[in-house]
Every structure is written in structure tokens, then in C-alpha cells.
């Protein structure tokens, strides 16, 4: 094999990936002579109890309403979420201006502009429920996004809104009283109301108090009405109005000047928050977790290829270096989230997925650096990809940097208990996924020679020891937190029990191995049980209360658990197939070239001996 190629491939792969990342990291520039939307994105608003750039607000709202963070217009051109936000806001402002004689002219110009750009015809509202579509009178579509015009012209729209509105009100007092269809109607109505609120200029708190920083922010609607009513004068409400009028009338210079002035005024009063908002906009545009998802796929492919006939070592190293690079991006993203939020890494289910993925990767990189058999990279890529997909599903329903409920508002316990327990989850998953590699390679390939089997066994064992330590400490710290916050160390509630199950499972595996009851294969089967239990603890326990009483507002998690458990059961079954049916043990093991280092050393060594 070509020596140069061997050295060149890993560096080349990492280099290309780094270039790609640099490209995506560069914030998009505003077109020369156009409206500076990139600057607009950074304007500070308050929503969900926290300061955030208007970009994040627009993205999360559009994500909820439309299922994606960009707007596609009638010409199939994509626009950032703030364009959708601005279009809706100026429509609302024009309606307000139309009611005031002195500003009726601007209202007409704005309306004309909106009509010219056919804003109302852009497909935005995601409605995939057949029954609801039938009620409104909309046709079914493969990609069920509908425009405002379509909705307004649909025969049953008005009646649907009236009915659904009363359901939403009912849900506030008696959520479990809603039937299945009613729940879905309420859900669609809630999405429509979000868009309405933006149009009514009441979507987020956009206007700071006239002076001082102590008082609460106001919605733009309220601030404008009190300003026009002569109750108060707030310069920042006026500058929002200027921004919107300039945008609506297509006044590029006026828009850019007004945005700059507004931003300067905010920066003077909220310097720290404005700084963080800039970072957050950069983070949003970079979308690091999305980039990671792509890179994990590439790592996985490279790693799998390295088990093929040629270029084993360069491909293995390429996979490893790319995994390391992805890990760096993942780390950066995690740190940025912590910096923006001023909190330890895990604050909700979404961030637990992000963190667990990150830690799995760290653990796998350590394993790969130690064992150099590509298993670390494969597992890293699989778990990294899986956790990113999970995070994507969890993040679809709102701001992922949301504020914490009072009882969780403690950085100390978030940093200790929550982090350790999630490291415990991560480690248990890593062991379980190594087990999958063991079983699949043994069943379907002839590559599970003695050395490889031993290495896999050692990896599983080491990771399980680590998992036992962390899940135990995490569980007990949780108990201590509970003791600190409501005086009960152990309450046997479902979530606590879930954590306890993981500890017992890991202890069980270790004792079974020490007792000589299982060797590598047995450990692999047990580690798969660890997978199912960890999924139970992470997501399953949350479903019990909801799943039973309410007609699942969100059944994705329950369905996810369903298929994950089935897959694990299938693998456990596969692992229990007698060895003589395993391809690996059926045929005589051929000598493989390019053997891994641990193989050479491990060959001929006895299987792991029971503890004395």
C-alpha cells in the first residue's frame, strides 16, 4: 500500500471537514445595498422569561408553526425566520395604522408591498391531521403546509377556529377532559394563535421599560397603544415602529438606520445581554448540532469501510480524526450553550440528549485511542448520530434554552447530580452499543477472533465499571438533592426508581462476570438489557403519567421507546442464539492481514478468568 496515501488520507479527511466547518461558521453577510437583516436578527427581546435575540424568537415560533426554521416563499426561495416574523408584524402594524387617520397612507403602502410579494400565499402552517384538515376544508398534501390565504378561504376555517378556541380554553382547566380529536384540534389552534400573537404585535416582550432596568418589558402592541394614547412615551417603542414601517414600505436606508439606532440604545442599557444575543445569533446560523449530525454519518461510514478489505488502518485513523474534530465542534456548541444560559450543561430533556451524545463521544474516543480497533469510532458515530436525532425531535417544540422551574433553579445540583447521572446513562449506552458490535460481528461476520472478542469484552467491562460508579454517585446525589429540597432522601418515585434500576443492572453485570457466570457474550447480552433499562429511565418513566391519562400531546417518545426496546429485544434474542450458528464460529477463522494491535497481543490468551 502506498505509504503517502496512508498518511495523507486521515489528514485530508480532517482538513476537508475543517474547511467545511469554517465555511458554515462564517455568518451570512447582508447583500450590498439591501436591508441588514443580519443586524436585525441580533435585536434583544424577552420571551419565555429570558433575554434572547429576535432571531431565536422567530426561529422557535416558525419551527412550532411550520416545522422548520426557514420560510420558503411562493417562488421557492428560502428566507430566514425573521422575514416571516417581520412580514407578520408589519401586517399587524398596518392594520393598526389603518385605524389612525394620520397614518393611513403608510398602511396602504405596506399592504401594497405585502400583496406584491404575495406574502400570504407562502406555505407556512403545518397541519397534518386529516380530521382537522377535513373540518377546515383543506385538501390533503404530501407536505402539509398551508398559506394564510388558503386557510382564510377554506370553507370551514372560521367555524373551526371558534370551536378550537373554546377547546383551548377548556384544556386550560381540564386538560384530561379532551378527547383525542379535540386534543389535536386544540394543538392546531394553539399554533395558529402563536402566529396571531405575532401579527397582533404581542408575540414577545419587545420594548424595555421607558427607563431603568428593574421593571418588566412590554409587548409592542401595549407600548404603542400607551404611547399613542399619551400615557407614556417610550423611545424604543417608536424605534420599533420606525423599523417596521421602513421594512413594510421597502425603505432600505431607513430600515438600516433604525435597526442600528435601536441596537445602540439597547446596547447602552443592556450591554451584557446584547453581547450574549450576538453570540446566540452566530450559534443559530452555525447550527453546530446539525453539522455534527452530518459529520457523525461520515465518521460512521469511514469506520465501517475500515473493516473492509482495503486501507483498514488509514480509514480507521481518518474516522478517528474526524470523530475527534466532530467532538471539538460538539464541545464548542455545548460550551456556548452554557455560556449563553449561564448554567451547567443539562437543564432540560433536549440538553440531556446533547450532553449524553457528547459524553458518549468522549468515552468512545478514549476507548479508540486505547484499543485502536475502530469499535470506539463506530459506537461514537452511532450514538452521536442517535442522540442528535433525539435532540432534534425534543427541540422542535420550543426554545431549548428555556428557563428553569424553581426547584431546578440550582446550579450546584444541576452541575453535580444531573451531570453525573447523565454520564451514567451515557456510559451504559456505550457499553450496550459495544455489545451490539460484538453480537453483530459474531453473528454475521468472521471478524470476531479471540483477540477482538477479548478487546470488546475489556471495553465493555471497563465502561460498565465506570457506568456503575457514575450512576451510583449520580443516583445518590439525586437522593441528597431530594433530601435538601423536600426532606426525603428516597421516595421510590418512577424517575428515582429508573436511576436505581441502572445501578442494579450495572452491579448485576459486574457480579455476574466476577462470579464467572458470564463471559464476553453473556456480558454483551446483559449490556443490551442495560440499554433497555437506560431508555426506560431516560424517557420511559416520563410517559407513564401522561400516557395513561391524557391522549398524548406528544406520543413521539412513547413510540421511540417502543421501537428501541423491540430492537434491543431482537438483539438480545440474537445474542442468545447458540454459538454454533454464529457465522464467526461456524467457519474456521481465517488469518486476517492488518490485524489490530490488541489482537496480536491477545491471541492465545485465555478467556477472562473469574475473580478469585
Amino acid at each position: 500500500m502506498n505509504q503517502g496515501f496512508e498518511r495523507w488520507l486521515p489528514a485530508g479527511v480532517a482538513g476537508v471537514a475543517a474547511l467545511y466547518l469554517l465555511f458554515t461558521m462564517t455568518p451570512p453577510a447582508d447583500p450590498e445595498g439591501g436591508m441588514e437583516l443580519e443586524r436585525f436578527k441580533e435585536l434583544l427581546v424577552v420571551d419565555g422569561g429570558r433575554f434572547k435575540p429576535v432571531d431565536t424568537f422567530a426561529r422557535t415560533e416558525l419551527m412550532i408553526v411550520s416545522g422548520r426554521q426557514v420560510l420558503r416563499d411562493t417562488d421557492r426561495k428560502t428566507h430566514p425566520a425573521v422575514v416571516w416574523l417581520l412580514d407578520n408584524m408589519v401586517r399587524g402594524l398596518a392594520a393598526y395604522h389603518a385605524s389612525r387617520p394620520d397614518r393611513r397612507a403608510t398602511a396602504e403602502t405596506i399592504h401594497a408591498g405585502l400583496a406584491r410579494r404575495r406574502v400570504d400565499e407562502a406555505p407556512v402552517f403545518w397541519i397534518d391531521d386529516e380530521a382537522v384538515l377535513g373540518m377546515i376544508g383543506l385538501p390533503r398534501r404530501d407536505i402539509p403546509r398551508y398559506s394564510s390565504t388558503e386557510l382564510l378561504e377554506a370553507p370551514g376555517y372560521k367555524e373551526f377556529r371558534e370551536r378550537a378556541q373554546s377547546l383551548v380554553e377548556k384544556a386550560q382547566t381540564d386538560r384530561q377532559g379532551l378527547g383525542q380529536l379535540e386534543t389535536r384540534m386544540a394543538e392546531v389552534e394553539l399554533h395558529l394563535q402563536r402566529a396571531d400573537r405575532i401579527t397582533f404585535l404581542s408575540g414577545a416582550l419587545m420594548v424595555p421599560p421607558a427607563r431603568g432596568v428593574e421593571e418588566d418589558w412590554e409587548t409592542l402592541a401595549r407600548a404603542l397603544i400607551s404611547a399613542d394614547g399619551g400615557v407614556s412615551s417610550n423611545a424604543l417603542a417608536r424605534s420599533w415602529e420606525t423599523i417596521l414601517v421602513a421594512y413594510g414600505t421597502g425603505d432600505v436606508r431607513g430600515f438600516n438606520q433604525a435597526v442600528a439606532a435601536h441596537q445602540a440604545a439597547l446596547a447602552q442599557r443592556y450591554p451584557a445581554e446584547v453581547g450574549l444575543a450576538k453570540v446566540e445569533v452566530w450559534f443559530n446560523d452555525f447550527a453546530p448540532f446539525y453539522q455534527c449530525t452530518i459529520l457523525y454519518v461520515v465518521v460512521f461510514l469511514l469506520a465501517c469501510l475500515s473493516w473492509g478489505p482495503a486501507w483498514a488502518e488509514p480509514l480507521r485513523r481518518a474516522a478517528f480524526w474526524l470523530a475527534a474534530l466532530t467532538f471539538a465542534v460538539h464541545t464548542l456548541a455545548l460550551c456556548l450553550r452554557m455560556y449563553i444560559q449561564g448554567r451547567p450543561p443539562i437543564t432540560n430533556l433536549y440538553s440531556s440528549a446533547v450532553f449524553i451524545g457528547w459524553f458518549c463521544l468522549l468515552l468512545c474516543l478514549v476507548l479508540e485511542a486505547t484499543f485502536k480497533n475502530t469499535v470506539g469510532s463506530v459506537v461514537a458515530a452511532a450514538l452521536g448520530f442517535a442522540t442528535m436525532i433525539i435532540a432534534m425531535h425534543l427541540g422542535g417544540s420550543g426554545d431549548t434554552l428555556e428557563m428553569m422551574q424553581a426547584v431546578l433553579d440550582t446550579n450546584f445540583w444541576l452541575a453535580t447530580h444531573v451531570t453525573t447521572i447523565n454520564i451514567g446513562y451515557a456510559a451504559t449506552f456505550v457499553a450496550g452499543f459495544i455489545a451490539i458490535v460484538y453480537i453483530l460481528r459474531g453473528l454475521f461476520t468472521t471478524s470476531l477472533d479471540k483477540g477482538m472478542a477479548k478487546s470488546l469484552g475489556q471495553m465493555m467491562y471497563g465502561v460498565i465499571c465506570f457506568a456503575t460508579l457514575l450512576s451510583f454517585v449520580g443516583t445518590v446525589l439525586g437522593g441528597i438533592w431530594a433530601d435538601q429540597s423536600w426532606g426525603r432522601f428516597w421516595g421510590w418515585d418512577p424517575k428515582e426508581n429508573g436511576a436505581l434500576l441502572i445501578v442494579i443492572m450495572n452491579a448485576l453485570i459486574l457480579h455476574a462476570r466476577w462470579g464467572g457466570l458470564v463471559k464476553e457474550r453473556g456480558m454483551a447480552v446483559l449490556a443490551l438489557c442495560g440499554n433497555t433499562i437506560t431508555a426506560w429511565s431516560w424517557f420511559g418513566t416520563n410517559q407513564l403519567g401522561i400516557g395513561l391519562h391524557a391522549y398524548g400531546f406528544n406520543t413521539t417518545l412513547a413510540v421511540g421507546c417502543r421501537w428501541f426496546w423491540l430492537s434491543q429485544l431482537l438483539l438480545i434474542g440474537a445474542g442468545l442464539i447458540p454459538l454454533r450458528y454464529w457465522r464467526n464460529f461456524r467457519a474456521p477463522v481465517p488469518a486476517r492481514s492488518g490485524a489490530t494491535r490488541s489482537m496480536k497481543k491477545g491471541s492465545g490468551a485465555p478467556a477472562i478468568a473469574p475473580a478469585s
Partner: protein
Amino acid sequence: MSIRIKTPVTRVLVALASLRLTVALFVLSLGLVFFGTLAQMNAGIWTVVSGYFRSFLVWVPLQLFVQFGQVFYAVPRTWHVPGAFPFPGGWLLGTALLLNLVAAHAVRFKLSGRRAGILLIHSGLIVMMLGELVTGLFAIEGNMVIDEGKSSNYVEHTRYVELAVTRPSQTDTGHDEVAVVPGALLRQGRTVSHDDLPFDIVPLQFMTNSALRQATGERDARPAMKGAGRQYVAVQKREVSGVDTEQKVDTPSCYLELRSRDGNPLGAYLFSLLLEPQPIAMDGKTYLVALRWKRTYKPYRIHLIKFSFDRYMGTGTAKNYSSLVRVEDPERGESRQVLIRMNQPLRYRGDALYQHSFKASETTTILQVVQNPGWLMPYLSCAVVALGMFVHFGIGLNSFLRRRQTP
């Protein structure tokens, strides 16, 4: 194995010390914890704790698995499978694990550097299991409900009720005379009579969890009904389950018939946690009778100065709850101001007082008061076990790395 002489005792010890037994017990523990979690779909957490974890044997209903299937595997909601199977409970498994552990140390383990980690882990675990035992046997929890500007010196135990018959103080400074009947007696259904009670009590019906509604047609159906029972009807409700999100504690109600000491009926009454005390006249004296949470009086008083509920800007999301209180303890001459808030309890005289909840008016705080002599044991245990794991796995990792380095 270090034991060579086979006496019956050592044979039993060796059998008890087996790692197979350990693994089997772990498997059973996994089952118990899982079943005990599923059971919380139907029953209150305390029912489950005493039925599954603080018991020797539990009958696990098969319906639990159907329900599991309904949540995760789209099993039809109408399915019902009768029957149950026996399973070892928490006390039994805990004891067995403890014996297994002690036997293992007696038979197999010698004191040596390599074994130090295991010894630490296992002794820490013993402390933890004993801690759970102490908690299970001795811990007492209750709530203290205080309005702003007022104080309280008793806690209420929301898992137990009592019927309180109060004769209000006849002088301005004097104490009320109170006689209480434990809820358990009312539940049993036998007539209660006692020298401290002005009348005998015949329990008619006891509801563990209930709601009240306005009486409409029933007034005529129950002619003997007196007091609040003429206006309201108690309706039986399902016991609050461990996974319920809306209701957290049961609200019991009961129908009682009162009789004078010489056997004359005084009428049937409805008593409920949801009702105010009802005046009942007897021999020219007026008594206030009410079903209320069981109370325990404390040697100190807590005075609520201010309750605060902070929210995040523009949302209803809670940022913090806190109660500014004054602890008043004449016995010890204490009178100091303390802020009790989320995650920051007040520990005083063996009790720990936590910010637990509040009433909708946001001027009444609910503190959780816990007395648990074993509260420090988990802290100790956690430190010891963690240290033990560090030592044990550290030794293992170290020798693994050394083996890899030497070719």
C-alpha cells in the same frame, strides 16, 4: 475459597455467600423496582411503598403489564387481565442481600490492599440499606400551613386523618379542650366511645378519597342527616396514584352517626377534609367537630412574615418560592428570622423545614416538616461507596494499563 473444613455452618455460609445468589437477588430487585414503578400508575406512592418496598411479599397484578402495553405498545384500552403473582418484597430482598453480603465477607474476603475498595463499597451499601430501614421505621413527615402574619406550632400528616371534637376555651386566655379519634378507627367501622368524648360515634361510611357536591334530591332520602350533610353529598373518588399530575393527596370524607352516651341517636353527620368544623350542641355545651389531618405539636412556633412567589418576566413560570419566617422557641429562648426557600431548608431541633407549597392566594405558605433520625446516613454512605469504587476500579484500571504497556 479460604474455608477448607466443611461444617454444616460453613456449608450454609458458603451457600449464602454465593455470587449466583447475588446475581439472582439483583434480578429479583430489578423486577421489584420495575413492578413497583408500574404499580404507581394505579395506586398512591405511599400505598406502593408499603406494599412493594416495605413488605416481605407482594402480589403483582397482571393488569400492570397490560397497562404498560397500553402506554407503549398500543394495546387496546379495554383489555383487562385478572390475576396476580407473588413476588418477594423489599424487606425480604433487602435482608437477603444483606445476608449474602455479610456471608461473602465472612467466607471469601480477606483484609488486603486489593480488597480495600470492595470492603468500602460494601460497608457503604450496608449503611445505606440501614439508612432506608431507619427512614422506613422512624421518619415522620408532615405539613405546616401558615398564613402571613400568623404562626403555627403543629404539623399535619396528610396521609392520616383524625376526627377532632373541640370544646372552645371558655375563658379568653385558656386552652381549648380537644379529643381526637384516629381515622383508622373510623375506617374500621366499629362504634367508638371514650370518656373524653361527649358522645359515641358510629361510623357509617368512610371514603379514602372523595369530592363534595351540592345535595339535590338526596335530602329527602336521608332524613336523619344533620349539619353540612344536608347541604352536601360526598362522592367516592379513585385513590390518588403515584403518577397523577393534578391531585397529589387524598381528601377523605366520612358519614358518622352520633349517639348520646345513653344511646339516643343525635343524627348522622357528614365530615370531610373539605368542610369547616361543625358546631354540635350537647348537654348545653357546644362542640366544634371536624375531620382534619392528623396533627403533631412541636415545641416551637413558626411565624410567617412573608411568602414570596417570583416568576420569570412575562411568564407564569416559577422562579422561586420562599417564606420569610421567625422561629419562636420559648423553651430555648430562640427568636430569629430565617428565609426558607427552594433547596434551602431550615434544620431545627431534629426537624427539617422545607418550602413545600402554597395556597392560591399566595399569602399562605405550606412547609414540609420532616423528622428523620437517619437523614445523615445516605450522605455518609455515598461518600464511602464512591471512595470505594474509585479505589477498586482504580486498582483494576491501573493493572490493566500496566499489562498493556509491558509487551
